[in-house]
């Protein structure tokens, strides 16, 4: 048997690891340096949030960096968007079974306030069927549509240009969850006419946890979900009207944003080889299929995420052995996306492997050897 000397990290859809070394260095440097001046702005001021916004604008495909509010994570951004969007009792929100609890739970709360929420099923690989989406828009006439760019369970990427167009034709605004895609595949919010988008820094952007936010298109006014100090315009009783201040109450996570900035700059200098990552994912997927595993393999575009089960072995047992005996770090269960499981025929959950640009061929080979042992174990 080949030796397994190091843990194999395949949980990048949760939190990416490793990070470029510059990320930790930047966080350390930020914590070791005297905090910035008490007043914002000025020629000599280095505003890490402003720098991050500028870097992000290119990745998000938007022109105005100031339309991006920065906070703690995607959940923060989704809550700002869902609770801040002007909805009233009787209005309808359209969403899908592929959504994460960061979308589902805020929507359950809206339902309790008289908002109607319609959820459409996805195909057996976790992708939204454009015809179902367009029909639902016509039937339900939603005011707001909330949709993930890619399933965090199967990796299936949705065709946002088509789905956004259908939403627009129905007169709805669109909130897109790009947590699983930003930094991994192209995102073009302006081109797609997306109205709002929530993202996180700790997945494929390679930044630290505690970073993320929400983009809001110019002209769309959200009611701030959180209010508090902004460091400027302190005489106002309400949050300043201009973005991003409008949604950014309280002291920001400056050290982590220094880390995210370092990650964004590193990624710009070291572009991701999408084809290579797709090839690695395909190799893993084919290997698992050859071993007799049930694997969800989306046709067409997908992120480097694979959900599978091993016939005859419980998900929990399989995962315990892969992690305990082989040091493979993965994720099992419902992946915070409970509604998708029935649609993809995995009611009990899945074992999820998620790769990154740092995943090696040897690691994939080692994972396949471990699964082979599992299949042949007679458990």
């Amino acid at each position, binding site marked *: 048997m080949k030796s397994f000397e190091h843990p194999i990290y395949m949980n990048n859809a949760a939190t990416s690891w490793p990070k470029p070394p510059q990320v930790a260095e930047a966080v350390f440097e930020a914590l070791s340096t005297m905090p910035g001046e008490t007043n914002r702005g000025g020629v000599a001021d280095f505003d890490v949030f402003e720098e991050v916004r500028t870097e992000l604008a290119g990745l998000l495909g938007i022109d105005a960096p100031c339309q991006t509010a920065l906070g703690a994570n995607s959940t923060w951004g989704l809550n700002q968007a869902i609770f801040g969007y002007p909805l009233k009792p009787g209005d309808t929100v359209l969403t899908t079974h592929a959504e994460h609890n960061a979308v589902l739970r805020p929507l359950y709360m809206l339902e309790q306030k008289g908002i109607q929420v319609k959820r459409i099923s996805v195909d057996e690989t976790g992708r939204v069927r454009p015809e179902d989406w367009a029909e639902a828009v016509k039937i339900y006439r939603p005011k707001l549509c909330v949709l993930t760019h890619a399933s965090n369970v199967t990796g299936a990427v949705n065709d946002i240009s088509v789905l956004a167009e259908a939403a627009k034709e129905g007169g709805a605004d669109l909130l897109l969850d790009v947590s699983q895609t930003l930094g991994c595949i192209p995102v073009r919010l302006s081109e797609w006419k997306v109205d709002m988008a929530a993202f996180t820094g700790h997945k494929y952007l390679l930044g630290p946890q505690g970073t993320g936010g929400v983009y809001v298109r110019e002209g769309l006014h959200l009611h701030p979900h959180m209010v508090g100090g902004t460091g400027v315009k302190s005489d106002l009783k309400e949050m300043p009207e201009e973005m991003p201040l409008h949604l950014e109450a309280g002291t920001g996570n400056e050290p982590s944003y220094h880390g995210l900035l370092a990650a964004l700059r590193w990624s710009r200098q070291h572009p991701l080889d999408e084809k290579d990552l797709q090839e690695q994912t395909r190799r893993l997927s084919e290997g698992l299929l050859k071993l007799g595993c049930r694997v969800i393999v989306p046709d067409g575009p997908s992120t480097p995420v694979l959900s599978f089960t091993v016939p005859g072995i419980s998900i929990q047992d399989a995962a315990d052995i892969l992690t305990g005996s*082989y040091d493979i770090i993965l994720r099992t269960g419902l992946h915070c996306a409970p509604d998708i499981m029935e649609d993809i025929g995995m009611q009990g*959950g899945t074992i999820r492997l998620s790769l990154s640009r740092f995943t090696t061929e040897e690691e994939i080979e080692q994972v396949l050897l471990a699964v082979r042992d599992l299949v042949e174990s007679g458990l």
Partner: protein
Amino acid sequence: MKYRCKKVENCFAGARTYEYELPVTGQKLLAYLKGWDIRENHKFRRPVFSAKQGALEIKGILAACVIKVNYPAAGWEYEKERLERWLAETEAR
């Protein structure tokens, strides 16, 4: 024997899985489990074991000091108390 117990936070519906850190390895623990249905599997890089008695099943790595128990839905609190009492009353040798 003294143990440290912590619930395993996972993403399964209705999970009742707990980990116990013991002063002995799984291999040594098996010697205390008289009358349990014990299975060892040495086909893995780190061999594993399972031990079953009634609705209670203990699993772990033979060479490790951490065991995992997924308590059954029915009467799981009773089973948890039963196992923990047994652990507390068993003298580690």
